[in-house]
């Protein structure tokens, strides 16, 4: 059915031409029905990938409008009201339609069954339903934008959203509600799959750290998302029926909304970044050719982040009127959540120490992730201290901080995942030159965009202002930021071209182009067969056992044949625990 994976002679044939498998999930059917009614987790992942990529660029378009407006101190491109709608659309589209589903719905869907040795997720039809619910939500969002948008900010703070905003608040809330449902379905699916569908021998501590990241993420999704769902429903109820819950004029409590909202929306940051951390663990292990250092610490730090992350939401509310004592507790717990995050960074660094490092495209993204995540994380600790936050709250310092986490970390990890698993998903290699170029441009453009925002935020520039003519000396920082965003746009746009090009003209990747460890590389063809494996795998090794040769036809572009991926020509049949 696919390349003969038991053949030893092919395992280190870096120079031999690789072949596409005869049958794989992509050629299992070509008509529209075979895609739109598929229950194959890999096809659903591709469906998600298409929509998510589209909305990433829609969200980026709104970001471009924001940056253009801020080039000059005066509000001369957009009106105040349109500007409100633009930044709301930017936030809502990026968070609900891109960041939250990004890695779980695409790469989680595609890889979890492959990594644990299952034929599919536990509930394939629920999986398809979750895509349709997501698609419905995205249609509603587009409708809102076409009708004229909404001006509350993506946070829907009451009573602005319930009693004062003019936009299509209720429709936006329905859209966000559906997006939440979609991710709940995905979370339930992942939990059942990871618990019950692991191949024989795939114990919890042999799972790739990527799977641990998704497990922690799924817990956050099913524990947090319902709370924001009900908070948003209550906003709609108050707005439509004038039942007082949040608006003090109706007897409600506006701080209550903020509590309910951030109870989910802070952990939502970990929904975005935990799967990304999983990606980084895979990439660093593979391109350092070493077992990931401190496996259990990284696995448990994911769980710790998921659990402690639920107890820090109050750090969004230091200046909201929340009691100072509550603020102190939230501040302390926020410091605590930095510890498991730091453990991961130290362990990745230790993994690279004395490793055989290959600077392939995914590795470059992974390295920029580590750097940007450190900046995003440490500025988060600064904001977690109440005294600093009183000054920095709602300034561009906060904007820069969360973009370092959401774009610098989550999106960079997403791009690392795209480049790492692209050969597995499509069976083709992309241009390594353009890949590296895009990775470096993205890194430069990102820092040029958001480092100046730390400065201008520290100087006092408030977020959500479209006019800063009261302090025209800030223009230099905003101009630098807009310049950076142009560079960043080039970095994000480049992959669209060379990845699309690779679909047709790219070199055939072969089963295991990176020589990586893991069932998805060693036991499945590229692209994988319809039911993933020819023979169901049995696992007798730890994850990342890079001291033993990886199985599968290796085809490592950009590395001299002298190394041929440092795979010794010994028998691939031997394995160690």
């Amino acid at each position, binding site marked *: 059915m696919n390349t003969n994976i038991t053949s030893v002679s092919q395992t280190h044939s870096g120079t031999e031409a690789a072949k596409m498998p005869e049958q794989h999930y992509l050629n299992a059917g070509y008509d529209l029905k075979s895609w739109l009614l598929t229950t194959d987790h890999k096809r659903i992942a591709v469906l998600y990938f298409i929509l998510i990529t589209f909305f990433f660029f829609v969200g980026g378009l709104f970001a471009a409008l924001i940056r253009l407006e801020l080039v000059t101190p005066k509000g001369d491109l957009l009106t105040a009201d349109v500007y409100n709608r633009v930044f709301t659309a930017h936030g809502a589209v990026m968070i609900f339609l891109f960041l939250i589903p990004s890695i779980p719905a695409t790469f989680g869907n595609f890889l979890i069954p492959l990594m644990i040795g299952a034929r599919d*997720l536990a509930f394939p039809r629920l999986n398809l339903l979750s895509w349709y619910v997501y698609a419905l939500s995205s249609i509603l969002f587009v409708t809102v934008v076409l009708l004229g948008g909404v001006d509350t900010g993506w946070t829907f703070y009451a009573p602005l959203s319930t009693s004062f905003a003019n936009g299509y608040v209720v429709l936006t809330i329905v859209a966000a509600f559906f997006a939440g449902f979609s991710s709940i379905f995905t979370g339930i699916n992942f939990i059942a799959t990871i618990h019950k569908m692991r191949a024989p021998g795939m114990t919890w501590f042999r799972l790739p750290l990527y799977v641990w990241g998704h497990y922690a993420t799924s817990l956050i999704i*099913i524990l947090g998302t319902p709370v924001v769902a009900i908070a948003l429903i209550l906003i709609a109820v108050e707005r439509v029926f*004038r*039942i007082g819950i949040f608006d003090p004029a109706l007897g409600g409590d506006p701080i209550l909304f903020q509590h309910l909202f951030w109870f989910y929306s802070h952990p939502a940051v970990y929904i975005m970044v935990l799967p990304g951390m999983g990606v980084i663990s895979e990439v660093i292990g593979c391109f350092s050719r070493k077992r990931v250092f401190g496996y259990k610490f990284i696995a448990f730090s994911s769980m710790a982040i998921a659990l402690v992350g639920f107890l820090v939401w109050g750090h969004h509310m230091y200046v909201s009127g929340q009691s100072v004592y509550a603020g102190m507790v939230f501040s302390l717990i926020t410091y605590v959540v930095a510890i498991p995050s730091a453990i991961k960074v130290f362990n990745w660094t230790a993994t690279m120490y004395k490793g055989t490092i290959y600077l392939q495209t995914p590795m470059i993204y992974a390295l920029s992730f580590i750097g940007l995540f450190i900046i995003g994380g440490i500025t988060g600790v600064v904001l977690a201290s109440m005294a600093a936050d009183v000054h920095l709250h709602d300034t561009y310092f906060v904007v820069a901080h969360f973009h370092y986490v959401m774009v610098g970390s989550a999106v960079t990890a997403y791009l690392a995942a795209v480049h790492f698993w692209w050969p597995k998903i499509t069976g083709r290699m992309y241009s390594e030159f353009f890949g590296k170029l895009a990775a470096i441009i993205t890194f430069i453009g990102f820092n040029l965009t958001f480092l100046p925002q730390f400065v201008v935020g520290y100087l006092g520039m408030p977020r959500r202002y479209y006019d800063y003519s009261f302090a025209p000396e800030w223009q230099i920082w905003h101009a630098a930021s807009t310049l950076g965003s142009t560079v960043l746009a080039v970095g994000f746009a480049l992959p669209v071209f060379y990845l699309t090009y690779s679909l047709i003209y790219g070199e055939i990747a072969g089963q295991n182009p990176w020589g990586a460890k893991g069932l998805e590389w*060693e036991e499945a063809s590229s692209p994988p067969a319809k039911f993933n494996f020819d023979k*169901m795998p049995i696992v007798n090794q730890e994850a990342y056992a890079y001291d033993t040769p990886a199985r599968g036809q290796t085809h490592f572009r950009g590395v001299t044949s002298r190394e041929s991926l440092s795979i010794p020509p010994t028998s691939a049949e031997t*394995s160690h625990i």
Partner: protein
Amino acid sequence: MSLATPTVDTHATGHHHPEVRHQFDDLEQQHDSYSLGMWAFVVQEVMFFSGMIVCYFIFRYKYPEAFIAGSNHLNLPLSTFNTVVLLSSSLTMALAVHAAQLGHKMRLLQFLMATLILGSIFLGVKVYEYKDKYDHNLIPGYNFKWETESTTTEHGEATDEPESLNPALKMPPLAQQVEVFYGLYFILTGAHAIHMVIGAVIILIIMVLAWYDHFSPNYYVPIEMFGLYWHFVDIVWVFLFPLLYLVDRAAAGGH
């Protein structure tokens, strides 16, 4: 992580028990997966209602007098009857699952029917209660009118309290506080009723499937999973009933 030899377990497209879906190895794995998935779903439902119940507690803490006044105005005998009806439906649901395990088709259908009828009675009574609130001008945000009663004015006259320096901390008048209580009453019971209606529709679907022999003693997992859902909805009511109907009845002297 790799395997020594790709030992044959089950071929990817191999032979299965006809009721085992392609992604599972055997019935047991399928059953375990469905079970865990359903429990995960129930956990998410618990969090959904928890969000609302947190709102309830915040306002009960803020407006204790209004909650007593509002609660004592609700129909206790009718809701007690409804509680009994709903708990009985949990019993018939459990018996339905048992009948499915044994493969007794007719008994399964009878118990599902009984569950459906009891659920419908509950919803009918709920509709009557809502209608009653409408007639008495107790729909918040729509026609809400609250005449302060003598039993509750003793501590309840919030307007008599000294003016707070911070206008945001000023207590709203009692009538508005009671309106918040009724708002929560409709939101909580409404969310519960929507779950009941969804449950009733699923019972109908299961009955049709059972009629056409879709289930067997080997394959009754959808009925068992639905049973979990139905019990969960009942348990929600077990919380809502005291929270909404039984607030300080004794202190207020009953109604």
